C-alpha cells in the first residue's frame, strides 16, 4: 500500500512537469478531514512523542538504535517475525479462498455454517484454545493416536511447541480477517459474467481463473494485507504454542516496555518495525499494484496503467486457454469439489472450538481430557461472580463505543480516499495503516500521556478512543476494497433525479456497501473486545474488561472457568449470526 508513495511521487513529478494539473480534489475529499484529525491527535502526536523518546529526549542520542545493531539477535527475531507472518498469511489465503468462495456462492444454510466456523475460533480464550490444541496435536493427542493406530508413524509426531504449532494456532484465529474481506468483494461480483464466459465456451476452471479470480483480487489484497500486518503483532499465541526460538519482535518490545521499563529502547525497536514494514509494503507494491486493486486508481495515472492493463489482459487470455486445455484432461468435479473442500476446512476450524465447549462442562478444576465428569460449575463460577459480570458489561460498552467511532470515521476516510482525488493520498494511507503496524503496547503508553492531560485516563470513553484508533485501519481497508466496484453512475443518476446527497447515500450507497459496513464494524468491535494491552495503560486498573479478566486467569490460575466464558461468547456470536441469516432470508423472500 505504501507503494503508492512512490507511484504518487512519480505522478507528482510527472504532474509538475505538465502545466495544468489534471486531478482536482472532489467534494468527497472533505470526508477525509474528521478521521485525519482524529488519527493525528490520538495517534500521530503520541507517536511523535515516541519518536523523541527513541531518540533519547532530552539527552539526544542514537544509542538506542545502535544497540539494535549491536546484537544480531534483534535482526534474527525480526526475521522470525516476518517468516511467521508470511507463512500464516500464505496458509490463510490458501485455506481462506475456497471458504470465502463458498461463503459467497453457497446456499443460506451452508453459508451460515461456514460463517460460524470462521468466526467462532476468534472467541475462544487463548489458553482454552491452547489446551484444545494440546488435546488435538499433543504428544498423546488425538491425531498422534490415530497416526499410531494406523501404523503411519512409530513415534508421536511433534506438532506443538515449534514453528508448526505457531503457524497452525495463528492461522486458526486470523481466518475471519482473511475470509470476510474477500467474501464481501466476491459477493459483489456479477455471476452473469461467469455464465456468459461459460456460454462462450470457457471451462468452469477457465471462467474462474479469467473472470472470478481477477475480480476478487481487491478482496484478496485487503485480506492479505490485514492478515500480514495483524500477524506482526501476535505475541501470546507464539509464546504458548511455539518453541524456544519462535520469538516475535512484539514479544521483545512488550518485555522491554512492561518488564524492564526501557521505553526508549522499546520505542526504537518499534520505529524499526514500522519503517521495515512500510518498506516491505512499498517493495510489495512494485510487484502487485496494491493501490489500483484497492480502488485508488481513479484515472490518476492513465499513462502508466494502460499498458499494464493490456499486459494483464494478455496474461488472462493465456491463463484461460491453458485452463481450457487442462480442464479437458481433468475429471470434472462439477461445483461440488469446492463445497466439500470448504466444508472440510470449516470442520477443521471448528474442532478446537468444540473441544473448548466440551471442556467447559468439566467437573475438574483443571483442563483434563477427557473430562472426568460433567458439571455446570464453570458456568456458575462465571455467572455468579459480579467481577466477571461487570467486566463483561464494561467490555461490551467500550467495544460498542469504539466500533461506533471507528466505523463512522473509517468509512468516511474510505470514501474520501477512494473518491477524493487528493494528492498525498499515500501519506494518509500510511497514516491509516500505521496504528496496526506499531505494537499496541508502545502506542498504548504514548496514548496514556495524551489522555492523562485531559483527565480521560481510567475511563471507558478514553479506552474506547484508544481502541478506535486501532480499529480504523480495519474499517478503511475493508470498505475501500468494496467501494472499488460501486459504480458512481448510480449515484449520479439518483442525484439527477432530484435526490439530495443524504437521500442518495441512504438509498443508493448504503444498501450497496452495507455488507462491507457490517463486516468492518464487526472487526472494529472485535479488535476492541479482544484487547489486553490498551486497557493495561489507558484503564489504569480502574477499567477491567473481559479479556483482561481472562488473561489474569491464564497468567495466574489454571482454572477452566475461562472455557465457560469462551463458550458463552461463542454461543452468543453463533446466535447473532443465525439471527442475521434468518432475517436476511426473510428480507430477500
Amino acid at each position, binding site marked *: 500500500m505504501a507503494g503508492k508513495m512512490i507511484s504518487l511521487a512519480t505522478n507528482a513529478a510527472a504532474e509538475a512537469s505538465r502545466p495544468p494539473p489534471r486531478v482536482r480534489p472532489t467534494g468527497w475529499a472533505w470526508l477525509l478531514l474528521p478521521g485525519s484529525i482524529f488519527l493525528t491527535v490520538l495517534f500521530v502526536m503520541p507517536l511523535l512523542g515516541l519518536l523523541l523518546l527513541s531518540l533519547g529526549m532530552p539527552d539526544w542520542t542514537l544509542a538506542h538504535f545502535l544497540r539494535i545493531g549491536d546484537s544480531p*539477535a534483534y535482526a534474527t527475531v525480526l526475521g522470525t517475525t516476518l517468516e511467521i507472518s508470511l507463512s500464516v498469511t500464505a496458509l490463510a489465503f490458501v485455506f481462506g479462498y475456497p471458504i470465502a468462495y463458498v461463503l459467497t456462492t453457497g446456499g443460506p444454510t451452508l453459508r451460515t455454517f461456514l460463517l460460524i466456523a470462521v468466526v467462532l475460533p476468534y472467541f475462544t480464550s487463548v*489458553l482454552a484454545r491452547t489446551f484444545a490444541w*494440546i488435546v488435538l496435536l499433543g504428544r498423546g493427542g488425538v491425531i498422534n493416536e490415530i497416526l499410531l493406530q494406523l501404523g503411519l508413524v512409530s513415534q508421536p509426531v511433534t506438532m506443538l511447541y515449534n514453528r508448526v504449532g505457531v503457524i497452525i494456532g495463528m492461522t486458526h484465529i486470523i481466518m475471519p480477517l482473511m475470509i470476510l474481506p474477500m467474501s464481501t468483494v466476491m459477493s459483489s461480483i456479477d455471476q452473469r459474467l461467469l455464465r456468459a464466459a461459460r456460454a462462450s465456451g470457457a471451462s468452469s476452471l477457465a471462467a474462474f481463473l479469467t473472470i472470478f479470480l481477477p475480480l476478487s483480487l481487491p478482496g484478496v489484497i485487503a485480506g492479505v494485507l490485514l492478515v500480514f500486518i495483524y500477524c506482526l503483532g501476535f505475541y501470546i499465541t507464539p509464546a504458548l504454542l511455539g518453541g524456544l526460538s519462535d520469538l516475535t519482535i512484539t514479544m521483545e518490545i512488550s518485555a522491554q516496555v*512492561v518488564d524492564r521499563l526501557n521505553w526508549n529502547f522499546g520505542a526504537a525497536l518499534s520505529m524499526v518495525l514500522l519503517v521495515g514494514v512500510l518498506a516491505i509494503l512499498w517493495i510489495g507494491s512494485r510487484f502487485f499494484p496494491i493501490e489500483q486493486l484497492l480502488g485508488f486508481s481513479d484515472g490518476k495515472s492513465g499513462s502508466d496503467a494502460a499498458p499494464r492493463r493490456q499486459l494483464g489482459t494478455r496474461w488472462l487470455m493465456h491463463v484461460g486457454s491453458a485452463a481450457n486445455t487442462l480442464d479437458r484432461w481433468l475429471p470434472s468435479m462439477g461445483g461440488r469439489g469446492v463445497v466439500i473442500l470448504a466444508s472440510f476446512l470449516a470442520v477443521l476450524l471448528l474442532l478446537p472450538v468444540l473441544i473448548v465447549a466440551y471442556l467447559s462442562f468439566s467437573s475438574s478444576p483443571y483442563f483434563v481430557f477427557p473430562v472426568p465428569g460433567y458439571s455446570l460449575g464453570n458456568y456458575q463460577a462465571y455467572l455468579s461472580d459480579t467481577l466477571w459480570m461487570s467486566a463483561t458489561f464494561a467490555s461490551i460498552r467500550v467495544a460498542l463505543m469504539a466500533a461506533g467511532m471507528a466505523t463512522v470515521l473509517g468509512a468516511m476516510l474510505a470514501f474520501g480516499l477512494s473518491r477524493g482525488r487528493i494528492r498525498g493520498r499515500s501519506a494518509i494511507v500510511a497514516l491509516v495503516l500505521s496504528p496496526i503496524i506499531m505494537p499496541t503496547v508502545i502506542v498504548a503508553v504514548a496514548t496514556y500521556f495524551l489522555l492523562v492531560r485531559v483527565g480521560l*485516563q481510567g475511563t471507558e470513553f478514553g479506552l474506547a478512543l484508544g481502541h478506535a484508533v486501532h480499529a480504523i485501519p480495519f474499517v478503511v481497508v475493508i470498505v475501500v476494497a468494496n467501494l472499488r466496484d460501486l459504480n458512481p453512475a448510480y449515484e449520479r443518476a439518483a442525484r439527477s433525479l432530484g435526490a439530495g446527497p443524504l437521500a442518495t447515500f441512504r438509498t443508493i450507497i448504503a444498501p450497496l456497501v452495507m455488507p462491507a459496513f457490517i463486516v468492518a464494524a464487526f472487526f472494529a468491535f472485535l479488535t476492541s473486545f479482544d484487547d489486553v494491552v490498551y486497557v493495561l*495503560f489507558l484503564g*489504569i486498573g480502574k477499567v477491567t474488561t473481559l479479556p483482561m479478566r481472562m488473561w489474569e*486467569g491464564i497468567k*495466574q*490460575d489454571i482454572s477452566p472457568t475461562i472455557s465457560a466464558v469462551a463458550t458463552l461468547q461463542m454461543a452468543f456470536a453463533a446466535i447473532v449470526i443465525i439471527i442475521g441469516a434468518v432475517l436476511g432470508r426473510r428480507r430477500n423472500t
Partner: protein
Amino acid sequence: MTESKDRSFPGAGLSRRTLLRAATAAMAIPAIAWATTAFAQDKLSGKGEVVVYSPGGSLTQALRKSVFEPFTKATGITVVDVTADFAEPQVKAMNQAGRVDWDTAFVQAQNYPDMHAAGMFVPIDYSLWDDESLKGVPEANRLNDAVVMYGSAMLLAYDERVFGANGPKSWADFWDVKAYPGPRGLYAPAAKHNLEFALMADGVAKSDIWPLTDDKIDRALKKLDEIKPHVTKWWTAGGEAPQLLLNREFVMTNAFDGRVIAAINQGAKIRMVWEGAHVNYTYWTVLKGGPNNANAQKLIAFINKATIASGFTQASGFPGPNRNQLQHLPSNLVPLLSISPENASKVVIEDSAWLAAKRPDGKTNLDHIQERWLAWRAK
C-alpha cells in the same frame, strides 16, 4: 499478638487470647477477620478510601477476602482496588505524567532500585506497626520506602505419578536425563532463573552464583545447551507449568511456588523441590503523590500483622515476610512455603541490586543477561 498490643486494650486481654487461640486452631479466614475486627487498633482506624493495586486473578481474590475486607471492618477505610497485569509501567507513567491515581503498588525487586532513585515512593511509616510485626518481619525485608510483600520462588516441580516420592532432588538431577528420564519444561522469558539452575547443575556453589558475570553466563549457556533437546516446552504464563505437568506434556519443570501450591491444594499430584530454588521479592510501596497516602500506610501496617499475613498466605500461597505467621498456619502448609526455616536455608536469593546496576555501556546487568539470553534463544 504482642504484649504492647494487649496493653493498648486492657479490658479485652483475656477474651482476645482465647479468641486468638480459637482462630489459630480453626484457621478459618472469617475467624481471623472477626478476631482482628474485635481488636482493631486506634492507630489504624481512619476514614475515606485507599486505592490499592493488585495483579488480578486469584491473588486479588485472596487479598480481598483475607486482607481488604478485614481491613475495612477494622479501620473503616474503604479499599478501592485496581487490577492490572503489571504495576511498574503504570507507576512510571503516572509519575511522569504528574498525576498519580493509585496509593500503593507492588514493585518487583529488580525494578525497585531505578524507581526508588527516581523518587517514586514515600517512606514506609513503621511507627504504625505493632511490635509483633516489627519483630516478625526481618530487618532486611524492611526498606526505607518499600517492604517485602512476598518472596516468590521459582523451583523444581515434578510429577509424583511418574517418580513417586523419589524424584529429582536438585538441579543436577534435573540435568540427569538417564536417572530421571522424561521430557522437561523450563521458563522461557527470563534468563536469571535458567542461568542460576544451570550453574548449580554444573556444580557451582549457591553462594558463588551471584553476580552473574560473563564467564558464568558462558558456562551456564553451555550447560543449557545440554538440556535443550530434552525440554519439550519453554513455558511463559505462570499457570502453564502445573497445567502441562498434569497433562503429562512433561515430567518435571521449574514453576512458581504459588502456582504449584494452588495446584496441590486442588489435589494435583505434584511435588516441590526447594533445593536451589530461586527467590526474588515483590515489594509494597506507597506512591508519592497518591490520593490517600496516609491510609495506604495503615493498610501496609495491617497486612504485616501475623494473623492477617497467615490468612493471606493460606488464601494465596504467597507468604508475606512475617515469620510469626508460621505458628498460625496449618502444619501441612508450612513445608510448602519459602519462609519455612527448612526451605529458607535451601534457596538462592537473587541479587536484585546487581541486576538493576548500570554497566559501563549504559545498559543494566539485567538488560545484558537478557540480551545474551535472547541471542541464545534465537540461534
